């Protein structure tokens, strides 16, 4: 019980620190983000209502009130999920814009993360078990090579060759333009078809982490005494590798998997933008290019908080799975 309480306290503290940091960053920056945001808001041609102005000021800093009062307003706004209006998209609140984009990112990046974890871990198990063979070299060198690719660059290459040159995949978007997102089989099929290239990009560039992590753990575990003992007992090679070694070597990778899931929402900014995918990453870049600070702040907060929540949950699960952790 003490373990869980301590984790909870730690989580609350980190959450508070992250939220506060999100408050401080725009106020530390040179120039006046508020002025820039307001003039930008006026430049969009909408009539700037007093409420919109106030929302911007609460998030980015008010020139006249004290910092503490601003901080209080900011915290209250967050608790009510009030983030003001975005001016990148007309007549849409920041909250609605984010809610519309989040499912796309969660499905695309979430699925890619799971696929990369499963494929990478299996490859790592095999490479570690059969180390110093041709397969081991091919797996290790191949995944390492692709991990050196900036994801957006691999995305561009795939887009050019498979999309533009050979017309095998669509060039942009999360679905065929004109289609209305709803839950029918044909729309889902269309969405999956559009997500293949970005998903391949994300999987291929992140494979190496899982492969190398698992391979190293396998090799370390294979050197343990109990493996030698199992060999001396005449157990079959494959039984040892899968039941004795892989199971024990898996734990660090599982921790990593938790972290990777936490990074899902913020993990694909450039890839989404390359493929014109309607997710959080594209929204963030839209906000950045339009100097849409309210939207930018809210997205950054969402990315951070989702990371923290996931880590918290993973920590709790870990405590349940491995009693040793609770003791420390």
């Amino acid at each position, binding site marked *: 019980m003490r373990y869980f309480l301590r984790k909870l306290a730690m989580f609350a503290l980190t959450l508070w620190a992250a939220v506060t940091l999100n408050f401080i960053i725009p106020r530390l*920056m040179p120039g006046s983000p508020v002025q820039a945001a307001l003039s930008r808001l006026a430049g969009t041609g909408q009539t700037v209502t007093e409420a919109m102005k106030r929302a911007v000021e609460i998030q980015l800093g008010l020139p006249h009130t004290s910092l503490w009062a601003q901080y209080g307003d900011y915290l209250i706004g967050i608790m009510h999920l009030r983030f003001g209006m975005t001016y990148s998209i007309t007549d849409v609140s920041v909250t609605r814009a984010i809610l519309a984009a989040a499912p796309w990112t969660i499905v695309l990046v979430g699925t890619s993360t799971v696929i990369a974890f499963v494929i990478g871990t299996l490859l790592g198990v095999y490479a570690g078990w059969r180390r110093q063979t041709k397969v081991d070299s091919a797996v290790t060198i191949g995944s390492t090579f692709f991990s*050196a690719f900036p994801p957006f660059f691999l995305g*561009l*290459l795939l887009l050019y060759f498979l999309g533009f040159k050979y017309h095998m995949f669509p060039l942009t978007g999360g679905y065929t333009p004109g289609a209305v997102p709803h839950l029918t089989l044909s729309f889902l099929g269309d969405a999956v078809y559009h997500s293949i290239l970005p998903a391949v990009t994300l999987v291929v560039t992140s494979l190496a982490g899982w492969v190398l992590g698992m391979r190293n753990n396998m090799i370390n575990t294979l050197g343990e005494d109990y493996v030698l003992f199992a060999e001396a007992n005449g157990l079959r090679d494959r039984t040892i590798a899968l039941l004795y070694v892989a199971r024990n070597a898996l734990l660090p990778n599982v921790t990593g998997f938790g972290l990777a899931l936490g990074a899902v929402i913020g993990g694909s900014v450039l890839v989404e933008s390359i493929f014109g995918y309607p997710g959080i990453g594209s929204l*963030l870049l839209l906000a950045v290019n339009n100097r849409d600070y309210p939207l*930018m702040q809210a997205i950054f907060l969402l990315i951070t908080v989702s990371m923290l929540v996931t*880590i918290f949950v993973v920590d709790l699960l870990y405590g349940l799975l491995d009693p040793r952790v609770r003791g420390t």
Partner: protein
Amino acid sequence: MAIVPPTMSPQGASMTDSGAVRPSARSLHFVARALGALWSNRKSRVGLAILAFFILVAIFAPWLAPHSPTATNFRPYQNPNSVNWLGTTGNGQDVLSQMIYGTRVSLLVGLGAGLLATFLALLIGLIAGFRPGVVDDVLSFTTNLALVLPGLPLMIVIAAYLRSNSTWMILLVIGFTGWATGARVMRSQTATLRTRDFVTAATFSGERLFRIVFREILPNMVSLAAASFFGAATAAVIAAASLEFLGMGNPNSVSWGSILYWAENDNALLTGQWVLVLVPGMAIVMLALSFILINFGIDALSNPRLRER
């Protein structure tokens, strides 16, 4: 003279053995030994060769480049030809010359940001590991916070607020956001070293804290620091390319990321000028790859089980 404990690692021992040699000669000897050890590993040998190639290109850029990288006196949007081997940009600049000069910027950002991140990681890790209690708690909390802050989105947000668009800003932003992983490893290493006998012996023999940290602890952290450096440099090269590609660097500077930025702006892929994307992109891949490969060698040095037999 420090008491040389039997548990010290080979690097540490070699540094204290040769106490009579001048410091500069000693560190030179150490660098040579480290390079030799890395050279004996096949993967890191390839990495060192690639890195050496890029460093040579960066140093001799003025002699290697066939044209000025900023001169705009060629016909724009040229495909590769006998005058402009890699074609020209939309502004009529020679791409090959830009690639050669751009090596300097990419190396500077990669190595510079890696160095900055490693320095911060060492500083914070050493202090946190050596001062258990409140100092350690605060620094560990900061480290964990920095660790969970999303890297690239954070860089994008900071760069968006700063709006100064320079190479140096990119270097600083990457350096100041990339230290946390290293700091965590260094902290736990320092914490275990602090309770070792040879450090206790040094403390009892009356050595000052400064000397203990730099002469007893630090030599045992060299391989960790090196791994942390090349890891941070890899991330820096990729992050810098991403930020520059988004136009958050200085698009008018001559760098690989800028070539990519302008290529994307001019829709180079759709107009058939794929060279403008492929060549700078592959250069970034090769530079990042060289750092990763060198790190394989460092891993093998510090973990004998990973050595190739």
